[in-house]
């Protein structure tokens, strides 16, 4: 039997999730990315000394964490984890339902925080928690009985455990605004921040990196034993941080957590460095420049965390820590990876009916990415400066530059979509289905 390339690749594509699933999550993330910077501009006055509380800075933070980071994590993990688990996502309706619940839920949470409107916030929180609970079940179903790549699967389980802590504390914090306190606020905040950023998002990022970085660098899989040690240290760090949240021996426990986290990160970065140095593809372009910067800022976030734990005599320390962790590490890493993944997935999905699938490079528009690169890094620099000198004007400038970068990134995404569904591809698909 010899099948035509089109028919064969169509068969391959049918085993992927339909493109509408990952791309709807990516599309929403791209939109919330822009909205997050706009919300930050609206709340620029409170940015340099932000320490929590309802308002536009908190809305911007959650547009980033829920709207961009978690939204992308859901879309990317549903598409990529099956590579590690060797199990397809069994339901195609669940991810779509999760998106329909989660996307407006994030908008309600952000508006509820920004306006502020506690009832809207609570309604949005219920939708978000329900949607993320559904995602947790979907993820668990895929991880149960996974075959192969156990260390990546273990990262998935650890991220899932962290997500449960994040959801419980999120509900408690949201209910507190309605006068129904759950956990003690300080403890809930501390657990929520650590388990959301370093736990759920961080562990997913580290775990998926063991697939993505070698795949893009074309290198051997990283040393599994060291990856296990890194994961174990990361989990220990999270547990120590959880213990510190209880208020007992807070400072030594936090410092121990930072120490374990630093060792975990050092091992992970060593493995990534080996993959990049030994890979067949040495030139990885702008996207991996962002990834490298993100890794540096992950380390910087741990240094800032130490400053917070030691009560450094600088009023903006906690804000700077947040900027380094969320904007510097997680957002920079994500936009770096996303600009590589989206054309790659688009190429896989656009293949049916073509003699050759469109190349990822032909689907990538470089100009918007160049603009985004400069704006993103400048915006982060300006925000850090705004915190350092306690300047609302500099924070506003940072948010404006960040908005310009996010708009450029949205342009890149729209171009990928347009090129992916170019008329000749549609004609090719019709031809393939007729044949």
């Amino acid at each position: 039997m010899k099948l035509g390339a089109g028919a064969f690749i169509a068969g391959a594509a049918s085993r992927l999730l339909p493109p509408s699933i990952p791309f709807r999550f990516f599309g929403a993330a791209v939109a919330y990315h822009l909205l997050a910077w706009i919300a930050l501009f609206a709340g620029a006055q409170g940015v340099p000394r932000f320490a929590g509380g309802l308002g536009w800075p908190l809305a911007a933070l959650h547009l980033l964490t829920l709207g961009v980071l978690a939204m992308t994590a859901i879309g990317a993990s549903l598409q990529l984890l099956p590579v590690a688990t060797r199990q397809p996502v069994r339901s195609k309706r669940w991810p779509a339902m999760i998106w329909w619940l989660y996307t407006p839920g994030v908008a309600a949470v952000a508006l509820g925080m920004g306006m502020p409107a506690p009832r809207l916030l609570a309604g949005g929180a219920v939708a978000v928690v329900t949607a993320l609970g559904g995602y947790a079940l979907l993820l668990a179903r895929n991880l149960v009985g996974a075959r192969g790549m156990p260390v990546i699967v273990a990262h998935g389980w650890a991220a899932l455990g962290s997500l449960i802590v994040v959801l419980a504390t999120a509900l408690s914090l949201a209910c507190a605004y309605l006068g129904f306190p759950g956990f003690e606020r300080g403890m809930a905040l501390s657990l929520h921040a650590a388990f959301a950023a370093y736990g759920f998002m961080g562990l997913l990022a580290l775990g998926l990196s063991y697939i993505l970085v070698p795949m893009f660098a074309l290198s051997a899989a990283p040393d599994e034993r060291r990856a296990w040690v890194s994961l174990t240290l990361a989990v220990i760090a999270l547990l120590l941080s959880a213990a510190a949240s209880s208020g007992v021996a807070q400072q030594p426990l936090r410092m121990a957590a930072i120490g374990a986290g630093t060792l975990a990160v050092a091992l992970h970065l060593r493995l990534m460095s080996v993959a990049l140095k030994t890979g067949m593809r040495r030139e990885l372009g702008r996207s991996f420049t962002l990834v490298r910067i993100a890794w540096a800022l992950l380390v910087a976030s741990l240094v800032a965390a130490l400053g917070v734990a030691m009560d450094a005599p600088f009023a903006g320390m906690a804000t700077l820590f947040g900027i380094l962790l969320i904007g510097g590490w997680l957002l920079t890493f994500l936009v770096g990876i996303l600009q590589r993944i989206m054309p790659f997935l688009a190429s896989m999905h656009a293949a049916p009916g073509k003699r050759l699938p469109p190349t990822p490079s032909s689907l990538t528009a470089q100009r918007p990415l160049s603009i985004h690169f400069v704006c993103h890094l400048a915006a982060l620099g300006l925000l850090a400066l705004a915190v350092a000198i306690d300047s609302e004007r500099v924070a506003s400038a940072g948010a404006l530059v960040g908005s310009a970068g996010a708009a450029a990134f949205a342009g890149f995404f729209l171009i990928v979509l347009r090129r992916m569904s170019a008329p000749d591809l549609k004609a090719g698909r019709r031809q393939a289905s007729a044949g």
Partner: protein
Amino acid sequence: MNASAPDGRQALGKRWVEADGVHIDVRGLLPPAPLVAILDLVGSIGDTTPVIVHHERDPQMLYPELAEIGWRAVRIDGAPGEVRLKLERVR
């Protein structure tokens, strides 16, 4: 002719040459080793010699990479449970 990768290079798969092209068996390798092994072999071929891939699953991540370097994949008959691909240079 058997052209298996030498000891210590198992991650590059088992390779041999037959009349229909250069064969590579990547079954049993964990991702991304099959992708790396196949692209390593394809990159070493300077002419139009086809590559026959013996795989245990559909290597979806491979196709964009092949397209980028001007190759394409066509599925051909293989043993039960095997995904066998013929890779050809198209430009």
